[in-house]
């Protein structure tokens, strides 16, 4: 009894220390990664911006009530940034300062940007994540397995690519119905072919190298070889593509909203704010600048983070 008890504790202790070791090692790896990344000041600033926007999106309700940013108060229409006005809201008149001004329905632009962050940030991120997974898997199969898989997947990709993206998205949303999730699917599927091509091409470049053969030789399975040996060597084109895609996903969402297929007003979204603002470009350019600059900053930040990530992940650039 006691003997077995001691062995269990010994094993547990052993496991504990192993776990601690693994933890320490991955901690060290992360610290090293972080040191690498933090050398790139622009990437750090961009990361702060993106995290900040994400925070704003999460806590949007604490900053502005949703009803407040969606209800009209026409008497306050087209206020300049910093002006204030009286808003009749929840059966009360309240004095409110429009920090970034108001739109043609008298809604607070900053408030709409804050709530729009929810949609835009999620779409930017989720569409890329979905298309990256799908495209990555299909591209890996096509590139690594070759033969019939390759032919089938690549021809399907060609077909997808030959349909104009906007038509494809319209078709998907029209078929599945107009909802946030379907919008996501539509945008993601328009980005999948790009990933398939990039991943396949990069894999073909790497898979004939001797270290892949060496991995076969020590008995590694296909899954392990792709995941541990090939993918880490093709991260840079994928990261570049992804950061570009975050931007275009946000833009696609905007375009589809504009066509009435995405997020419909009054629900705020950066893209539909932008398209609504076009009419007033002459009288109230701030209507255009606010969402336009926000989109620009977000997209730029994602790109800079991408560059930083790519460099930080490359051991050759480590110091």
């Amino acid at each position, binding site marked *: 009894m006691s003997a077995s008890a001691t062995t269990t504790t010994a094993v547990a202790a*052993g*496991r504990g*220390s*192993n776990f601690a*070791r*693994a933890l320490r090692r991955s901690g060290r790896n992360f610290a090293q990664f972080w040191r690498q990344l933090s050398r790139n000041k622009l990437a750090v600033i961009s990361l702060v911006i993106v995290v900040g926007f994400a925070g704003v999106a999460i806590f949007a309700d604490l900053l502005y009530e949703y009803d407040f940013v969606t209800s009209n108060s026409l008497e306050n229409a087209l206020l300049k940034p910093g002006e204030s006005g009286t808003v009749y809201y929840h059966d009360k008149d309240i004095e409110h300062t429009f920090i970034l001004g108001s739109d043609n329905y008298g809604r607070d632009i900053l408030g709409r940007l804050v709530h729009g962050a929810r949609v835009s940030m999620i779409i930017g991120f989720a569409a890329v994540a979905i298309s990256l997974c799908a495209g990555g898997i299909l591209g890996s199969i096509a590139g690594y397995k070759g033969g019939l898989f390759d032919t089938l997947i690549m021809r399907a990709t060609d077909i997808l690519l030959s349909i104009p993206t906007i038509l494809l998205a319209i078709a998907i949303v029209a078929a599945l119905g107009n909802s946030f999730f379907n919008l996501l699917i539509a945008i993601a599927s328009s980005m999948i072919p790009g990933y398939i091509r990039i991943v396949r091409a990069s894999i073909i470049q790497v898979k004939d*190298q*001797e*270290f892949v*053969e*060496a*991995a*076969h*030789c*020590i*008995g*590694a399975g296909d899954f*392990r070889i792709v995941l*541990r*040996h090939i993918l*880490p*060597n093709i991260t840079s084109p994928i990261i570049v593509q992804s950061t570009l895609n975050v931007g275009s996903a946000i833009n696609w969402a905007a375009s589809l909203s504009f066509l009435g297929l995405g997020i419909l007003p009054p629900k705020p979204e950066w893209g539909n704010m932008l398209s609504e603002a076009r009419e007033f470009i002459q009288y109230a350019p701030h209507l255009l600048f606010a969402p336009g600059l926000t989109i620009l900053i977000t997209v730029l930040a994602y790109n800079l983070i991408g560059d930083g990530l790519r460099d930080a992940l490359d*051991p*050759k650039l*480590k110091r």
Partner: protein
Amino acid sequence: MSAAKQASGAAAPILRVSGLKKYFQSAHGKLHAVDDVSFDIAKGKTLGMVGESGCGKSTTGRLLVRLHEATAGSILYDGQEVTAASDRELKKLRTRMQMIFQDPYSSINPRHTVANIIGEPLKIHKKVKGAAEYEDRVRSLMATVGLADRLYDAYPHELDGGRRQRIGIARALALDPEFIVCDEPVSALDVSIQAQILNLLMDLQDKLGLTYLFITHDLSVVKHISDDIVIMYMGQIVERGPTEELFARPIHPYGQALLSAIPVPKLNARKERIILKSEVSSPIDPKPGCRFAPRCAYASPECAAADPALREVSPGRYVACRLAEQFV
């Protein structure tokens, strides 16, 4: 079965290759990389393989550990057919057969640390329990091949060619294999480390009874380490024999040229070098007949008529040349 095995005794070959062929499809036709090669290796022995660059040595080595699928032929390893092994059998076989690769640059993954590269086979085959044992094992493997402890977390690009090659050797040794295909394991190393590695490989052989197929261009190395030698030319074996005899008296004209071209690290040691006509023939859909004939000083029209077979011309000496008797 087992009785028969025992009866044949220690000399029973652990590896028996017969009629092995590998054709690659190329733009212009079939590239005959390995064309009907047969040999066997006795347990605990070293077979040296030399030949012109591009003659199919690495391909042969890769076929043995099944990194390529053979076009035809059979590879019997310890009674098991390698060319027909299922995935599971193959995974098991790979703990017994390993390969050290030719190019120390492309054969290790630039994104992994030294420890990860050496330790990966241990993880795949679950040879160790727990991180502590894993780390100890990796460190002891590093010590075995003479890699300094400080390099545990280093990345390959920080290392020079010699140290990279030792990573490859440590990786191959990690699973305690019985048979190792050594594809030019020392050509990237300086002579002192080359000597260390050769001593190491030979010590391991003495201690663990390892069997090697040793591919190299360095003829003094192959002479030092091998028991038997095969000389290949354009996908075929042109000569085979015990090391000492073969070096003393090469029979095949290509073998003669090869041995005469060995650079000697002494002043004015220039021997008479046989200069080969540098007429290159392509291994793509080769014409029948002796493949060396276009460059051979003794060739006559009959040489191009038919493939010369590898035959025993004097005890233990096999040569594929129509005129072999003339050179004995």
